[in-house]
């Protein structure tokens, strides 16, 4: 039986509220289907507008088999391209980030304008039509300082996501922020395990002493269940919305993205060991209110986020293989905040550096145990793991119909 039918059959036969069967977390063929049917089709968070501060700034990313480059052009637009030269396919940009006046392939110096047009190809035959060999574009959208790309030929409409999420983000002015620090760790576990771990705080008490100093474990905060019956949440939302910050829990009808603003414990205002702010300067000149808690935002399959008054911590998930996932964390502060003056980098990054390390170990132990022939799907806690159930349901709901499609998925190909 081929993997496609196998996966479809297992999805149709899965028990609601239970974890997935082993091959979803371990099988290379399942992984390939995840890539083709989810990762090469859905909108993916890549980075922030502020990482491309001026024309010529670029960042690169690898999505499965696709190298992609994001670059700001002379008009200030952010463009994404397949990072593969139209000459013989070499990667045009081969560093994580940088600035370049033009995108120049290091192999034979084919030179592309920042909008992807091929400007110069040395000594090609007469009649060579440069206009036919521009860099291939990748759909690219920016919302509230977050850049998303989509590899599909016909991306899903981005407008509903923008409409819902943008009001939450805009007051924080992340377009004008700066990345104070970023780290990428590789977790030896399937990308869905990384997400499942993130979607609950059932594990927090036993594993995250640093985070638990400030972040509440209440399932109403972290999950998707019963948030609007929790008086503490309701009063927090009322307070924040009165201050002009959209805060109520909202979720996409398909379950792919949601936003809500959660209070931190007691008088905590930031993710530090003391609960006090890590950055003297507010993240946004437009948000002066203290104790706004954390704006929690996720968008499957690539990002979850915490946006605070003094800084923001953003996360990007990218699968490497069936059993490896890269998690990139970025700490954003006001662009004028000065390291060593307005903030201490070690203090700013301590809680989430520790928490990420703890999560990595948790995910790896989870992945290790799932390899056991004795593993079988187990029941999620309905009280604490509503978020995980929601994630797995989303996954099954998105990939299931795509598995059932006739023929091969419509993939955008690269020359």
């Amino acid at each position, binding site marked *: 039986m081929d993997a496609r039918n196998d996966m479809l059959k297992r999805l149709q036969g899965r028990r609601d509220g239970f974890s997935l069967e082993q091959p979803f977390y371990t099988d290379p063929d399942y992984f390939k289907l995840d890539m083709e049917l989810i990762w090469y089709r859905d909108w993916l968070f890549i980075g922030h507008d502020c990482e491309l501060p001026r*024309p010529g700034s670029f960042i690169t990313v690898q999505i499965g088999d696709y190298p992609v480059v994001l670059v700001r052009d002379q008009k200030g637009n952010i463009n994404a391209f397949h990072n593969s030269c139209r000459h013989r396919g070499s990667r045009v940009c081969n560093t994580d980030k940088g600035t370049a*006046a*033009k995108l*120049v392939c290091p192999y034979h*110096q084919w*030179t592309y304008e920042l909008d992807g047009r091929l*400007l110069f190809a*040395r*000594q090609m035959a007469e009649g060579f039509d440069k206009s036919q060999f521009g860099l291939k574009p990748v759909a690219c959208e920016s919302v509230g300082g977050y850049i998303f790309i989509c590899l599909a030929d016909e991306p899903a409409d981005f407008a509903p996501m923008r409409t819902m999420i943008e009001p939450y983000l805009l007051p924080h002015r992340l377009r004008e922020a700066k990345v104070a620090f970023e780290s990428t760790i590789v977790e030896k576990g399937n990308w869905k395990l990384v997400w499942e771990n993130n979607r609950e705080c059932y594990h927090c008490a036993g594993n995250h002493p640093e985070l638990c100093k400030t972040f509440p474990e209440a399932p109403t905060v972290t999950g998707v269940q019963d948030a609007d019956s929790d008086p503490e949440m309701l009063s927090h939302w009322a307070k924040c919305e009165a201050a002009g910050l959209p805060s109520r829990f909202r979720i996409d009808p398909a379950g792919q993205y949601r936003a809500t603003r959660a209070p931190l414990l007691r008088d905590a205002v930031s993710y530090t060991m003391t609960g006090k702010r890590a950055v003297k300067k507010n993240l946004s000149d437009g948000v002066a209110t203290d104790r706004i808690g954390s704006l929690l935002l996720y968008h499957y399959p690539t990002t979850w986020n915490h946006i605070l008054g003094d800084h923001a911590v953003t996360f990007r998930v990218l699968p490497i293989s069936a059993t490896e996932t890269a998690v990139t964390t970025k700490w954003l502060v006001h662009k004028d905040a000065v390291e060593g003056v307005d903030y201490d980098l070690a203090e700013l990054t301590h809680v989430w550096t520790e928490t990420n390390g703890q999560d990595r170990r948790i995910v790896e132990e989870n992945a290790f145990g799932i390899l056991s022939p004795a593993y079988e799907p187990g029941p999620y806690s309905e009280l604490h793991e509503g978020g995980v159930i929601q994630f797995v349901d989303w996954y099954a709901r998105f990939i299931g119909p795509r598995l059932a499609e006739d023929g091969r998925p419509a993939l955008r190909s690269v020359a």
Partner: protein
Amino acid sequence: MTDLGLYRHLDQMAPWNDRLQVLEVIGVSDEAPDVKTFTFRSDNQTWFRYKPGQFVTLELPTADGLLMRTYTLSSSPSRPFSIAVTVKAQAGSTGTRWMFDHLRPGSHVKAYGPAGDFSLHSHPAAKYLFISAGSGVTPMMSMLRWLNDCAPWTDVGFVNCARRPEEIIFRKELELLGSRMPGLSLGFMIEERSSREGWFGHMGRIDAIRLPLLAPDFREREIFCCGPDPFMRAVRGMLEAAGFDMARYHQESFAAPLVEEIPAPFASPTGDGAAIPVEAATPIRFSISDVDAACVAGQTVLQTARASGVRIPAACEFGLCGTCKVKKLSGEVEMSHNGGILDHEIEDGFILACCSKPLSALDIEA
């Protein structure tokens, strides 16, 4: 051995690639003692586009390694299927001597260029005076041949100085042109008699008395001068003393000047027959390569680097692709790029070598 089937009309051919071209030797001829003309065609069936008076840089693979040598072209762009250099092998010469010993019809050599501003096309005038000594005649010959082909009525005074009569390069061709160009007046001058050829003309060295004899109306002419440095200094001195408008004086030289003490960029100190303009040469230090070079007026940093054997990667060479971006540690340049460098990179001291010309002495990290 000519394959007639290879013949292509000019309008079927593309101009040669001035960044790097492989040339094939199609002729080697003796002009005078220790002076030969090497004639080349492109091995790529391209035609040669240049200005009469410009120079090319040849990459000579000698036993001691690659030598970059710059030679003015003696050929005329009005005959664009081939180019020629006429070179004198001085005592101690390495590059030119290698050419004498190794280049035969069928040999290949790499070339860059053309470049240089020493051309009547850059300084149009009603009347010209070409003053040269020794193999400084080559750019003059290029310009005169062009005039003969394209504007044979032009008023040209042509003065050439040599040690002995038989050392006058192109003497027969010049005399022939003199009978065909009504406005050409020839003047030769030698230093010493020869037992091989009789001499009825001027003797001695050019000076303030002899110059008006050779070119009575020199004040009305656009003057081009090329020869050894003492020769050019003498000519310049005479003209200055005569109150000549020096804006109308242009010179090119064989070797680094002695007075300014600019390190020899193209020619070995012994003189290699290479003609380089010197008056406006600007020193460029390439710090990583530990090479001191001089940039001729009109040359870019990249051309100077190449002529000095300093390798700077480059591709488009019109300021677009940015491959030749280098750090300028000191000095000022005039840069006319096409978007291949960002403002903040310029602020950080980077330049594109291909489209930067020095405005002052430079220190380049290359």
